[in-house]
């Protein structure tokens, strides 16, 4: 017998807690439903805002999602986590709504963001030119350290600004940065939920994070 613990066959499957909640929900336990609402409702609204820009419409999409959860709860098999399963329902509701608004940009199996020219993480003029005698492609002036700006960084206005920046990102970058960095999903959860590869997930995350950092740098400099 090997001394190591058995490998979890699917780290993305439903947890014990998920199964307990689902059982309670099937039994009509209102407390379980309240717990789910408190845990995920605001996340669902935020995720819906990725697809529909109007806050009131996003709220409707979240409500529709909960009705979908109730109607489908008997079909929940636990192969995915409850969170991923609920997100799939949200995705369907939000994309249907978006489609109705005729702004649909579906993921394609052949779509490869790495092959698309992306903007650089940092403006090229921040680096010395290729023909520089000693330091080609190195910083021409170092970025300024943000230490000492902590109060400004966590100010309410800064959060509002970051939200605005995220709204300007292309759809797929917005999906990935919202799930990964705002809602704290793991890379595998995001890949499973959006049906994209690990590599594409990283490219989208990189572009989105770089854009937010650049915007923050500019914001802090202007103040």
């Amino acid at each position, binding site marked *: 017998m090997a001394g190591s613990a058995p490998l979890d066959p699917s780290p993305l499957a439903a947890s014990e807690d998920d199964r307990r909640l689902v059982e309670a929900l099937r039994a009509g336990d209102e407390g379980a439903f*309240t717990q789910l609402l408190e845990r995920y409702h605001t996340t669902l609204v935020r995720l819906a805002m990725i697809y529909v820009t109007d806050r009131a419409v996003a709220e409707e999409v979240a409500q529709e999602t909960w009705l979908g959860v109730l109607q489908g709860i008997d079909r929940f098999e636990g192969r995915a986590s409850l969170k991923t399963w609920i997100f799939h329902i949200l995705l369907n509701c939000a994309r249907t709504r978006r489609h109705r608004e005729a702004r649909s940009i579906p993921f394609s199996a052949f779509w490869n963001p790495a092959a698309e020219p992306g903007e650089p993480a940092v403006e090229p003029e921040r680096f010395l030119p290729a023909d520089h005698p000693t330091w080609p492609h*190195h910083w021409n002036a170092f970025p300024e350290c943000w230490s000492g700006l902590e109060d400004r960084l966590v100010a309410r206005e800064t959060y509002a600004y970051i939200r605005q920046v995220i709204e300007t990102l292309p759809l797929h970058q917005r999906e990935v940065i919202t799930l990964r960095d705002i809602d704290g999903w793991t890379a595998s959860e995001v890949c499973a939920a959006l049906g994209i590869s690990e590599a594409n997930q990283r490219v989208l995350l990189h572009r989105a994070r770089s854009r937010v950092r650049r915007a923050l740098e500019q914001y802090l400099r202007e103040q």
Partner: protein
Amino acid sequence: MDDEQELTCQELVELVTEYLEGALSPEDRGRFEVHLATCPGCQTYLEQMRQTIELLGRITEEMIPERAKADLLHAFRTWKRG
């Protein structure tokens, strides 16, 4: 690609996410860290990326509005009866 060549700052900034995600090959990770050790500009850059990610994770947690909660609990009771 010349593996022996040192990374430039402009190359490093494009590898930051792969570095933080643990997705670089051991060789590239080594080159990344060698550059970082001697470059204050890239150290600051990496720190800024970390601060950006931390900030994103702290975007306010809101509560479900009471009205929405009441509506949904009403829907739940209807569903339960149905």
